[in-house]
């Protein structure tokens, strides 16, 4: 029986989104949550982004490209548990997902033209938030199909939390042809850039073209035109994605490590999520150093001198690290009042096999605690 906030979340939510900075173990937490949900009887899918090879292997994932793969029962054998529902995993291929989306919403005659356009390449790969957007778009798609009771999303390492939350708006902005039409109207009418100084947009355009070169503007205008036919389809989906983020059955799991820099980012993320009225289910502090126990010091004092010195030095180091973590976590909790905070200890080695996932899960769900 779980004692942490993640228990009810795993039982009730339809979508869980793991967010946080790079290098804090988001993928591991996401995979663990899906595993636990499946074992407890809800069919689950974990959608990973660039997982460690060994983690992918331990989930039976070998190919990228958005294939939803069922994790075989044999993969769970080392745990001595059987899942009461199916567990699936996939690796998200961003570019492929964008191309699929275009294929779905573009008129057939425009498809190739769009896929080959430089501005499309920029939208699908370089636009801040585009990766985040497409990851959520994928989840929305999966959620609409309703094949899984729970979808857990791992997210790209975000440079800025805002990129993530703003992503649907940015994509909508991009499609907001009002701006383009206003700017490009003269060009569209004349088939070239209007250069009349008496017309406001012409004047602005001329200054702009100094900046980007005229051909760039013309290419952009033709791209905007080719998109205009698919606006509504896009818009509807972007609205769907935004609604999904705010839905009561969607929850965010904020993952951080106990480094002050990472925690500052987590605090910032939490503030933004609150502003966007999105629910943070739990704050997971990963890789926390446990404090060496009195019994360990006691046992160390019985060792031979050289060995004792080595062990005691190691315990002293662990003590410093545990102190640092403890102070940081206290500050974190103070900065995020009311958000359940769950600590996962630092395990011996990289956490990339199913056994370590299970171990992580025991802490996430409160079966084990510090």
């Amino acid at each position, binding site marked *: 029986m779980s004692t942490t906030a993640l228990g009810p979340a795993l039982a009730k939510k339809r979508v869980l989104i793991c967010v946080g900075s790079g290098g804090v173990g988001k993928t591991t937490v996401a995979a663990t949550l899906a595993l636990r949900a499946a074992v407890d009887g809800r069919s689950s899918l974990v959608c990973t982004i660039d997982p460690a090879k060994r983690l992918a292997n331990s989930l039976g994932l070998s190919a990228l490209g958005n294939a939803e793969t069922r994790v075989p029962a044999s993969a769970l054998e080392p745990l001595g548990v059987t899942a009461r529902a199916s567990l699936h995993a996939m690796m998200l291929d961003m570019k492929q997902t964008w191309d699929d989306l275009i294929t779905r919403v573009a008129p057939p005659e425009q498809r190739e033209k769009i896929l080959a356009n430089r501005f499309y390449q920029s939208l699908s790969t370089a636009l801040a938030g585009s990766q985040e957007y497409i990851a959520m778009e994928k989840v929305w798609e999966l959620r609409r199909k309703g094949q899984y009771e729970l979808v857990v999303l791992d997210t790209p390492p975000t440079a800025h939390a805002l990129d993530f939350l703003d992503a649907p708006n940015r994509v909508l902005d991009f499609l907001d042809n009002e701006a383009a039409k206003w700017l490009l109207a003269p060009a569209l009418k004349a088939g070239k850039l209007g250069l009349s100084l008496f017309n406001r947009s012409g004047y602005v355009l001329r200054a702009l073209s100094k900046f980007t070169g005229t051909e760039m503007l013309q290419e*952009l205008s033709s791209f905007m035109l080719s998109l205009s036919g698919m606006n509504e389809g896009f818009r509807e989906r972007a609205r769907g994605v935004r609604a999904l983020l705010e839905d009561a059955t969607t929850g965010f799991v904020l993952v951080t490590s106990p480094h002050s820099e990472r925690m500052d980012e987590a605090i910032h993320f939490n503030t933004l999520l609150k502003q966007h009225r999105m629910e943070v289910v739990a704050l997971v502090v990963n890789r926390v150093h446990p404090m060496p126990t009195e019994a360990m010091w006691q046992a160390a004092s019985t060792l*031979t001198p050289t060995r004792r010195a080595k062990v005691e030095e*190691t315990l002293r180091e662990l003590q410093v690290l545990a102190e640092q973590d403890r102070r940081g976590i206290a500050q974190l909790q103070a900065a995020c009042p009311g958000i359940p905070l769950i600590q996962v200890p630092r395990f011996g080695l990289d956490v990339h096999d199913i056994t370590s996932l299970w171990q992580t899960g025991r802490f996430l769900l409160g079966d084990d605690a510090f």
Partner: protein
Amino acid sequence: MAGLLDKRLWIVSGKGGVGKSTVSAALALRSARAGRRTLVCEVNTQERVSRFLGHPAAGPEVTLLEENLWAVDVRPQEAMREYGLMVLRFETLYKTVFENRLVRYFLRFVPSLQELVLLGKIMYHLQEKLPDGRPRFDTLVLDAPATGHAISFLSVPQVLVQTVPPGPMSREAQKMRDLLVNPSVTAAVLVALPEEMPVNEAIELHAALTDKVNIRTHAAVLNQSITERFTEADLEALADQPDLYAVARAHHDREALTVLAGTKLERNLHVPVFNVPRLLLPTFGREAIEQVMGHLEALVMGER
């Protein structure tokens, strides 16, 4: 090996969370101590380098932190403005055009324009001159974004040169590319931790920088290294004390990972690897940076 001091632009990158800002701060401090006028650039982040060194955040203006050391946080809006003024020459014209909401929308989607102006500002500082003709800065340390972002960020000039029709953007891009690919000007320092993913990312980053962007990797830094302590005999002797065994085992495993990571980096990058041990200080600040700097002495000054 030759030291980094022979180069003028030092690019520090690696996976998120490996300590890029720590290494950038240490390298910049050492360069300043060597009497070089040094500017450390962060790109649109919650600034760290200045704070690590015990100074208030610099913000978007080039700010003197201490003797020979300046910092700046390069942000899109300010960089765009500076670039815009350079192109348009008139403040009022800039205001009319760029403070227009629709134009702002529009510019956000011009491919790579944001990266171009960010990188453009950095390259501008690299070429700035004092009234007497000497460079304003001898050394520029770029605390670059993490792997994927770094590759797309640094590829921008190359991509633009190949795709953009001739014009102001492509001319700027050409100039930047020439500086980036010049091995006597630019050197990359790749940071990793002794763990699987950070090491793999450093290797991927090296391949991309070499093949796609043509930037030379100068060295790797293996941060948070664990030095050898426990022998196999120690572990055997602790076998009947499960708690202590676990402590010693974990340490021993990390020692092994450190060795493995160092070897793997050397084999794949063909450059020297500098180990920076894990620091155990109550707070992470100036003292930590000074310690890291000590371990990077030969990287900056060269082997003597």
